[in-house]
């Protein structure tokens, strides 16, 4: 609502990630190991946008999102690059200013973590979770805070009585809703969600996705979320980024990525989705995702790529603009989609 009143800013980007490299660095008994979970990722997320990150397991999705949230602990370390947020004209560099970052957490930036149904402490009533996480960020009196939380829960479709319950008395769907309520009660500008619907069945998932989208539209927040489930991306993401072996290989508006994938990996991901009325056998991609401690040379996808040529083995393709998005492939656009 406020956004329409503000003068249009020159850049409407909310998050800028530049050349981000985050490695797991381990040193066991004198043997150094380095797992390049996030390797040179650059991306921009605009105000009011839902950005989805897709990729298979162990491709570095969660590491990427943790690094963006500034919630990393050793052995994961940022080696290079920067993560910058822009909250209403206030620039915030996650790794240069930890103090400001701490203040911005929950108020401007909230995080729905993986396995978030277990975010509630099993031996404490739900109201305490709201108090612990959100109270000091909102600067309200206890009674005003309580009223605000109750109103927020009602908007989300939860009875305020759940505040007096213990987590084990609630269903999985209710707990997931509560987690989302916790993450949105301060009306943050930016929400980070790591597999927000993975543990839910399809119907509850639908419900929760609608809820996330609804909140996002009402608050004018941006969301970045991770899931391996392409149907979730199709349902709510404005743009999606495909991650393979720690690198962003393709990015673009959701519809375009689904209709005209440019990267052979994306094309394969999308052709593996079942379609109603189509009973053709889906072929599996040969091989498995590379070991990130010892990634392949050149394009990391080349050992499994049906279109690989010599150049792919030797040179790493840059992420370059193409059509409506960006793609990192020497043979971009040559792939045939079913």
């Amino acid at each position, binding site marked *: 609502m406020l956004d329409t009143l503000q003068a249009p800013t020159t850049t409407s980007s909310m998050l800028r990630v530049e050349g981000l490299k985050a490695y797991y660095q381990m040193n066991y008994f004198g043997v150094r190991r380095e797992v390049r979970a996030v390797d040179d990722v650059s991306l921009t997320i605009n105000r009011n946008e839902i950005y989805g990150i897709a990729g298979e397991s162990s491709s570095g999705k969660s590491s990427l999102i943790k690094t963006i949230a500034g919630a990393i602990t050793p052995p994961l370390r940022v080696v290079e690059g920067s993560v910058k947020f822009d909250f209403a004209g206030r620039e915030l560099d996650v790794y240069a200013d930890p103090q400001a970052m*701490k203040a911005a957490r929950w108020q401007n930036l909230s995080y729905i973590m993986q396995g978030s149904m277990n975010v509630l402490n099993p031996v404490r009533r739900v109201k305490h979770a709201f108090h612990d996480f959100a109270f000091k960020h909102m600067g309200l009196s206890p009674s005003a805070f309580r009223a605000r939380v109750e109103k927020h829960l009602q908007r989300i479709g939860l009875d305020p009585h759940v505040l007096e319950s213990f987590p084990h008395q609630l269903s999985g769907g209710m707990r997931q809703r509560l987690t989302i309520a916790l993450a949105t009660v301060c009306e943050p500008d930016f929400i980070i969600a790591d597999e927000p619907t993975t543990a839910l069945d399809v119907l509850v998932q639908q419900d929760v996705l609608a809820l996330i989208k609804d909140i996002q539209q009402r608050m004018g927040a941006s969301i970045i979320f991770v899931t391996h489930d392409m149907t979730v991306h199709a349902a709510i993401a404005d743009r999606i980024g495909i991650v393979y072996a720690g690198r962003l290989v393709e990015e673009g508006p959701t519809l375009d990525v689904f209709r005209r994938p440019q990267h052979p990996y994306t094309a394969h991901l999308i052709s593996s989705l079942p379609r109603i009325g189509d009973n053709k056998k889906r072929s599996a991609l040969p091989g498995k995702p590379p070991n990130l401690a010892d990634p392949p040379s050149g394009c990391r996808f080349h050992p499994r790529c049906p279109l690989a040529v010599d150049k792919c083995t030797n040179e790493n393709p840059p992420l370059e603009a193409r059509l409506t998005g960006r793609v990192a492939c020497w043979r971009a656009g040559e792939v045939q989609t079913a």
Partner: protein
Amino acid sequence: MFKILRDMLRYNIEFAIGFVLTLSIFLFALAHFWAPLPDTAIYLLPPDMPPSAQYWFGTTSRGQDVLWQMSSAIWNTMLFGLTVTVLSRLLAVAVGMLSGYLGGRWDQALMTLNDTMIALPNIPILLLVYFVMRDSMSWPVLAATAALLGWNYDARLIRSVTLSLRNREFTRHAVFAGMSVPQILVRQHLPYVMPVIFFTAMNNLIWAIGLEVTLSVLGFSDINRPTIGGMIYWANQHQAIIAGIWWWIAFPIIAVVLLFLGLFLLAISVNEYIDPRSRLSRMGA
């Protein structure tokens, strides 16, 4: 608080029994403030009188009323036990939770100290302290020494619980939301650790009372101050069993057994209050 007590008395038979037992022993011990004679006075009553209407639990060979001696003795023994328990719980919780949550070098340093303390034998050290202190040995000093010896196993136990809590989602969330280390430990982890603290407190109380009785029976304490062990010490000095003065030994032992029983029932039912799942299922909520 009153509502919780009422619910516990109504729905939890162990709690009801334990509560009544402990409360009556406590009231009995409290009565020594209104004792007709000072508890250190001797030979003011006829000695060796069996239990009768006048002297309910009989009199000792030193001319004291067993009833009033016991009242003082239970009070003093409980005071000693509770002091040891509270002091050693503070140590165990602080060391266990910090070591489990901070990890790394803190963990190594604290656990090295902890394991060194475990290796020390208790009774010889207490005797050594007694011989060094001699006449300036008072019960608070003895309690502090016992507390310093009684926290280490429980610190390890509490550390193990905290260690598993450290990697839970709610801890990661709390860190992200900007809660400080003390806040996380007190608000998020302490409720989880509470049943362990209560249960080890129970064990520790029994251990402390047992230790006090052992030292007093051997005479390694202030023998003029009545305690359960002190009464048995004097009964042995006067050969009460051989002389047939059974009431001098039997009643203190019965009292301390009832005290243990009451505290034990309280401890297990308090656990149930702290674990909301079992409390609510018992109440049918």
